């Protein structure tokens, strides 16, 4: 049974309302598992809810909008690897644990090799996804060394991880591994795009609200056309990227490059809106007590994760040139 986008959005808004920004990490993770979000895109015959990319986009949009901390994107990469890779009793067991909320993680930086960067919550995770040119595998975290890096973005905890030991569960090899890793990464990029547009939506909303309440020169700032037009331009940019997100999320096949071009656009919009949000708030926007900076930092991190705009846009350009 397929849930409609509106049903999914309504449920997501109940779980994480946009008024409580950057909620508690432990509590959030529990909500995410209880909502069944980790099982959302797992096929029904593997114990999941069998939803498609649209549900995935709704979830990450909601997480982005409320600046929810935690390793949801990495966790879903592991889950995608388990559902798309070769099936075994061990894989089934781990998948069940992952859907139930046992943390598992992966690099959000497209690393290849034995040292991975941008690995969320590695210290709390049981397994690590390891993608190479030849192989997609799961490695027990116990056999790896993790070092936490202090990120500007306080809503994410990232680690560098050195992979050790020989013990691993191989999920795919050769061509199958390459196909699987494209799927995993395409989904990661879609998730980053949705997270970015959720965040952009929230950053624009708080800015408009602030401009409506703050008075200078005997009028609300929102009355100044110079500011209104900037808000309108941000609205347009977000709506355009949104339209592309939902189109890609509902398309029959999402190519990796298209997902990359989408993520490039969405994260750029997020960055621009978050940048403007601070400017439009004035001094208060530059303080740690105000949430503006959380959006700015998460936006910049989203721009850098999963391959940057330079990388994806060049690739999209080459593909478009070849096919036009």
């Amino acid at each position, binding site marked *: 049974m397929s849930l409609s986008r509106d049903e999914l959005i309504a449920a997501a808004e109940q779980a994480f309302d946009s008024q409580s920004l950057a909620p508690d990490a432990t509590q959030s993770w529990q909500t995410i598992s209880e909502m069944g979000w980790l099982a959302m895109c797992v096929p029904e015959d593997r114990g999941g809810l069998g939803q498609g990319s649209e549900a995935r986009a709704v979830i990450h949009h909601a997480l982005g909008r409320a600046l929810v901390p935690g390793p949801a994107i990495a966790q879903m990469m592991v889950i995608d690897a388990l559902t798309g890779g070769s099936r075994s009793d061990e894989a089934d067991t781990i998948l069940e644990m992952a859907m139930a909320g046992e943390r598992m993680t992966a690099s959000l930086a497209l690393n290849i090799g034995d040292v991975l960067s941008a690995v969320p919550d590695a210290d709390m995770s049981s397994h690590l996804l390891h993608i190479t040119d030849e192989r997609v595998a799961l490695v027990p975290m116990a056999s790896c060394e993790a070092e936490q890096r202090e990120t500007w973005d306080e809503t994410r905890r990232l680690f560098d991880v050195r992979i050790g030991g020989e013990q691993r569960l191989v999920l795919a090899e050769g061509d199958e591994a390459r196909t699987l890793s494209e799927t995993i990464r395409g989904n990661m990029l879609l998730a980053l795009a949705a997270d970015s547009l959720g965040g952009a939506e929230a950053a624009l909303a708080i800015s*408009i609200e602030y*401009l*409506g309440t703050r008075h200078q020169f005997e009028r*609300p700032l*929102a*009355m100044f*056309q110079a500011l*209104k*037009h900037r*808000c*309108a*331009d941000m*609205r*347009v940019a977000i*709506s*355009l*990227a*949104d*339209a*592309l997100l*939902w*189109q890609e999320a509902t398309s029959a096949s999402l190519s990796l490059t*298209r997902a990359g*071009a*989408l993520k*490039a*656009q969405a994260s750029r919009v997020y960055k621009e809106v978050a940048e403007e949000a601070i400017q439009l708030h004035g001094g208060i926007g530059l303080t740690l007590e105000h949430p503006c900076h959380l959006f700015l930092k998460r936006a910049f991190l989203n721009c850098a994760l999963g391959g940057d*705009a*330079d990388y*994806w*846009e*060049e*690739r*999209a*350009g*080459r*593909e*478009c*040139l070849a096919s*036009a």
Partner: protein
Amino acid sequence: MSETIEGLRSELRSWLVDNAPSDWRLADTHEGFVAGQRGWFARLVEAGYAVPHWPQQWPGGGRSLAEQKVIYEELARADAPRLLLTFVSTYHAFATLSECGSAEQQERYLPRILEGETWCQGFSEPGAGSDLAAIRTRAVLDGDHYVINGQKIWSTMAQYADRCLLLVRTDSSGPKQAGLSYLLMDMKAPGVTTRPIRQIQGDEEFAEIFLDDVRIPVSERVGEEGEGWKVAQATLASERGLTLMELSYRMRGAMWRLADLIHANGRNDDPGVLRDFGRLSARVDSVCAIADAYLQKRIEGTESIGDAALVKLGYSRCLRAWADFGVRIGGVSEQYRAPITFGDLNTGNWMADFMNSYAWTIAGGSDEVQRNIISERMLGMPREPKHWTQEASQ
């Protein structure tokens, strides 16, 4: 479903091979260009591709959105000219008459559109641009006729039009919107004079219309007296919905022109160029996606205020960026003059396309006006109090 779509695509493709005009860019007189437009429209009508957005009862109408998109994309791919001369008749006049016209007006005028009768839009005046409701052209009742005096401006191809969608003032006493009426005018009526205006690309694309004691029968009024503003909204809405879908899908269908240009100028391995091209292509995709989603909303009846403005502004800015990219890659050769273009957006000369793209940032409610609509009516930001406006104009 997708089978019939692909069937339509290949059918249209092969039809275009035999029928798409190839020499339309070479017109060096206005008359030559207009004649080419008339011939192309007639051929499209005959083949059933001229008005895919019209309802089913019309030949060539009743196409699904998916079919319409394929048609626009393929026309652009085949490098066929856009229908500029009949743009106002097939969109504005058709939408206005279907929604607000009397049965008699519909019967009289709609079939003639397919026979090639052309319309122009007589809304703007020297003193009424963005502030459209400020129009001053007067219509005074005299028996069963209105007598019109005044001046219209920027009316696209009015000099070639048979008829005009004319917005006039019938009452100056109340609020300015309430005193307007909407008339259908014969451009050959005594007292109508047009004077073409040259645009920056050198063409005489739009014209002034001078109205000197022009008599229009009362039966040519659309809606009641004083309802002109409401009827005008139907005209303007047509401009923002379907036309933008045609234009965005045409933009996407013509991406190959930029690809060819990149190859021709040896820039196909230049990462900077490729990046900007990739970014532009995703932007064009997002414009198509939002135009799509918008039309879907209109069909479902879930459109909200400001939705159309998002599409218009999204398209107009993307169009400027698209032409700008062509100017950049084309280099000096884009700086040599092109023949008559009449505002086409695939003229074969990117500088001409760039100049023509202003039509979409200025006309039909400028970008700034769209931003006002979005911020005030969609985002709920406050308007300036009226008394400031009055103080400012004193």
